[in-house]
């Protein structure tokens, strides 16, 4: 789920940070650039793990700031295909489920990857939502928001930024995880214990 990635970055250190120790100043700048941001094909930056080296410090002509080349390690969130992760239910509609990890919300379980056979019925409490029900042995197992839900990662995609966006479309997400519930041991935890 979490990985360390070694990254090299050249950054300009604004002069108002000169009062801080170099390490701290650079760390702060890196946090602003990489923490809580998705890097395409790498994953979601969680935290700066450590700074390996700081080189340079050149002041280029007509610039009032020094430029450093930093090598550092970043903790990234990047689930691998086939990984099993526990999440909470965020939305449930006719197209499938949307799950959330708290810090990452763009996990979708489309209808074809729901447990087979399953059906959906309108949710009595919320008219915009539906409730998915897995039918097994003539018993019904509903997916409600009470339990944590285990899903298996089906794929992870990094859509490129759209040039034009419709007004009523979903907000753009730079990293989308497609999950599957269609295997033994997946779904709400209470189904299995």
């Amino acid at each position: 789920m979490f990985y360390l990635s070694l990254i090299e970055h050249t950054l300009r250190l604004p002069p108002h940070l000169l009062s801080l120790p170099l390490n701290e100043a650079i760390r702060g700048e890196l946090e602003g650039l990489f923490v809580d941001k998705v890097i395409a094909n790498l994953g979601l930056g969680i935290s700066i793990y450590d700074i390996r080296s700081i080189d340079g410090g050149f002041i280029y002509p007509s610039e009032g700031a020094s430029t450093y080349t930093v090598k550092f390690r970043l903790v990234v969130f990047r689930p691998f295909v086939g990984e099993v992760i526990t999440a909470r239910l965020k939305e449930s509609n006719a197209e499938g489920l949307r799950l959330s990890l708290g810090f990452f919300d763009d996990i979708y379980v489309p209808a074809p990857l729901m447990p087979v056979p399953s059906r959906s019925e309108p949710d009595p409490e919320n008219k915009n939502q539906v409730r998915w029900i897995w039918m097994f042995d003539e018993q019904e197992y509903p997916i409600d928001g009470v339990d944590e839900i285990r899903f298996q990662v089906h794929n992870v995609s990094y859509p490129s930024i759209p040039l034009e966006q419709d007004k009523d479309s979903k907000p753009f997400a730079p990293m989308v995880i497609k999950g599957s519930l269609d295997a033994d041991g997946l779904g709400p935890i209470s189904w299995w214990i």
Partner: protein
Amino acid sequence: MKILEANAAALTNFEVLDFLRSRGAGRDPTRVIVPVAPSEFKVYEFLEQTAACNQTRQSIDEYLGKCKSIKLAKAEILNIINIRPSSLVELYPIIEEYDNRFGEAAETMEDFVESVVQLLPPPPNQMESEQGTAKDQTEAPDCKV
């Protein structure tokens, strides 16, 4: 920005939680004094709800020793630490091609799950249910047809 090594190392949930704790998350109830970003607190909150919150380096080391007897891929070993399965059926999705690889070794796998339950502490919300309601276990479906 240049990515030198996309995959320098894989981390377990426990290691990330340990790192965030060492930065001071969890010690500061106001969440303002320690230099931890709000997004990092969200990760910390998520990890506190998982099995990682009671794990220790020692318990994971013991578990890794146990894993040597079974041929598991690194990713599977890691996933088991993060999920901490408490029954055989929870192991099925984690292990790829379970039936081909371990379908005949049901007893060894049961022993393995038992040792996982013993070595790794349960996640916080599962604590009560594991102690009390043994009756419910028989009612849950064992396997799909």
